[in-house]
């Protein structure tokens, strides 16, 4: 990165099953205005807008950046749209940050959303694509066999996924923006919930949410201004990376995808990370189905291959349990899943922690955090590192 840049404004809507009080534009504008005001700005101060969401099939609005231009205050400005399936929220933030890191713009607004109540994700993810084998089972049906392969490979006990499901829902109880608040959550409650796609129970799956997320990313000059105007510190970006690979090819390791490992290696090189478990104070990682926590612990190099489940089992990733590397303190995707925004929420939550604004789910003295999002058939990855320290 050539120019220093940081998150200076954050906005998110409360995630809910149905936001019947707002249109898509109203939902997106709510998060965008919050972010702009958090940075002590108005839309007039924004140089460019970058928007992301999951595939257009979801709500059936093609190229929604056209319709949303006015709601985002983008008229007369550059407006970009990013597409990378479930990882899109993260990729969108990265595209926005590069507009600042390249020295082209001073302040960029980035926004991501999904209004799942206006859509049918299960249908949209099951429509046959040309030249691909049909899925016909939504995301859970696609990922369950990969999870079973992980269990077989690692010898993990069957209750690991349920432990993640409980842990993330306990975290969500401390996050007022989370969709699911389940005060009675327990291993028994997860185990007693309906089996959807073996080994995934209903409560090991993400909810279907309406929600939007937004951030303002600023240059060093914009950071100084925001800090003096608002008294809130920035979250400096120390590295960002994206990688992708095809859905299927001979020899592909879908449990521990090469693209994810390559993405992490590039990111850690930029940010000077040698031991992720020790170097990060927390991480927000895209875990839409419980078992993806141990799988991504390994893919992201927090432990040796095959050992991810042991960290989860020992409570290392639990904020409430006092683990050394809390993951998804916000409750994660398991507690709120406005799909297009879910990746950005991971990135946004790391910035919230670094700025010390996470409230009840704040990791004490969080100085460096990892945000990760993945999408498609575990094939699109986006990641960033944010820190209290200026790079």
């Amino acid at each position, binding site marked *: 990165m050539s120019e220093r840049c940081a998150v200076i404004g954050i906005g998110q809507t409360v995630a809910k099953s149905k936001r019947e009080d707002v249109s*898509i534009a109203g939902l997106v504008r709510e998060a965008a205005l919050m972010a702009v005001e958090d940075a002590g700005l108005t839309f007039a101060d924004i140089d460019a807008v970058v928007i992301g969401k999951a595939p*257009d099939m979801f709500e059936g*609005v093609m*190229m929604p*950046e*056209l319709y949303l231009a006015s709601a985002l205050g983008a008229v007369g400005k*550059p407006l970009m*749209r990013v597409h990378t399936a479930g990882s899109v929220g993260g990729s969108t933030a990265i595209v926005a940050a*590069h*507009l600042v890191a390249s020295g082209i713009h001073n302040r960029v607004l980035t926004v991501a959303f999904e209004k799942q109540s206006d859509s049918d994700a299960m249908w949209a993810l099951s429509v046959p694509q040309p030249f691909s084998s049909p899925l016909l089972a939504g995301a859970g049906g696609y990922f369950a066999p990969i999870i079973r392969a992980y269990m077989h490979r690692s010898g993990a006990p069957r209750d690991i996924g349920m432990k993640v499901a409980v842990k993330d829902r306990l975290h969500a109880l401390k996050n007022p923006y989370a969709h699911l608040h389940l005060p009675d959550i327990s291993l028994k409650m997860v185990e007693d919930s309906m089996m959807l796609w073996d080994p995934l129970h209903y409560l090991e799956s993400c909810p279907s949410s309406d929600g939007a997320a937004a951030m303002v990313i600023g240059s060093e000059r914009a950071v100084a201004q925001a800090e003096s105007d608002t008294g809130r510190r920035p979250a400096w970006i120390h590295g960002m990376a994206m990688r992708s690979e095809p859905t299927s090819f001979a020899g592909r390791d879908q449990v521990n995808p090469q693209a994810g490992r390559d993405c992490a290696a590039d990111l850690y090189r930029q940010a000077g990370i040698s031991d992720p478990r020790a170097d990060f104070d927390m991480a927000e990682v895209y875990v839409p189905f419980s078992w993806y926590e141990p799988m991504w612990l390994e893919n992201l190099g927090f432990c040796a291959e095959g050992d991810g489940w042991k960290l989860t089992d020992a409570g290392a990733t639990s904020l409430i349990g006092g683990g050394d590397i809390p993951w998804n303190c916000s409750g994660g995707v398991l507690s709120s899943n406005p799909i297009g925004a879910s990746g950005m929420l991971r990135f946004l939550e790391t910035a919230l922690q670094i700025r010390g604004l996470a409230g009840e789910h704040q990791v004490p003295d969080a100085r460096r955090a990892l945000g990760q999002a993945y999408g498609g058939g575990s094939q699109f990855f986006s990641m960033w590192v944010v820190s209290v320290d200026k790079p």
Partner: protein
Amino acid sequence: MDGAWALYEAWVLLQEGEIDAALVYSFGRSSPGNLSEILALQLDPYYMAPLWPDPTSLAALQAQAMIDAGLATEADFAAVAARARRSALGNPKAQVAYDRSPEDLLTEEYEVAPLRRHALPPLTDGCAAIVLAAGDRAYEWCERPAFITGIDHRTEAHAIGARDLTHSPSTKLAGEKAGVARSGVDVAELHAPFAHQELILVDALGLGPDVDLSPSGGALAANPMMSAGLIRIGEAARVIWSGRADRTVAHATSGPCLQQNLVCVLEGV
């Protein structure tokens, strides 16, 4: 968004020094579906899309607004189409090319008044790819590279009623930011899917009568969705490689009635 915006994104990373070469590609395959219905879905989902306005009807409203404002006539639209299809005769990749007089074209029936068949783009399957390289790498790979010396894009409001359809302020602003007027322009490749839109773009970019307009035939000769804009950049680069031009402008558009526009200035050194 057209692939031209993907090229912009690659250009950002090149500017930053993150990378020094990039492959940009985009494709559009309109033949298997019903493009008119699909494009209606890019409109405001609450107030416009339920009316299913097709892109030709929206473009016709824009053309009629030009006639009503005294800015152009149907004969002007026919003149644009006749020139574009004649130019396309020299483009082996063109889908629609012919040598017919504007008077002859004006005998066609209306598709949606005031637009006759000649003023409409064809339905196209197509794909384009562009290789970008920074600095010295460009000279390693190309004898006479076309350097991007300015690129910018801007959007307008979505609601048709909130815009003056006879002008393109977003193209004008993008052109100013990209520095179109800093020096003379030899060739302009304009992404004008409907004939009358070329007149709006020429005005917005301040192009004089000596500028060679869309010698490839433009989007009237072939209009692959999501690629016709990227192709304009490729065509504007190609005339620099060949030495036919020193400074060119490429334009790409997205959305109904030229809602969003990108302008790219290319120069041979």
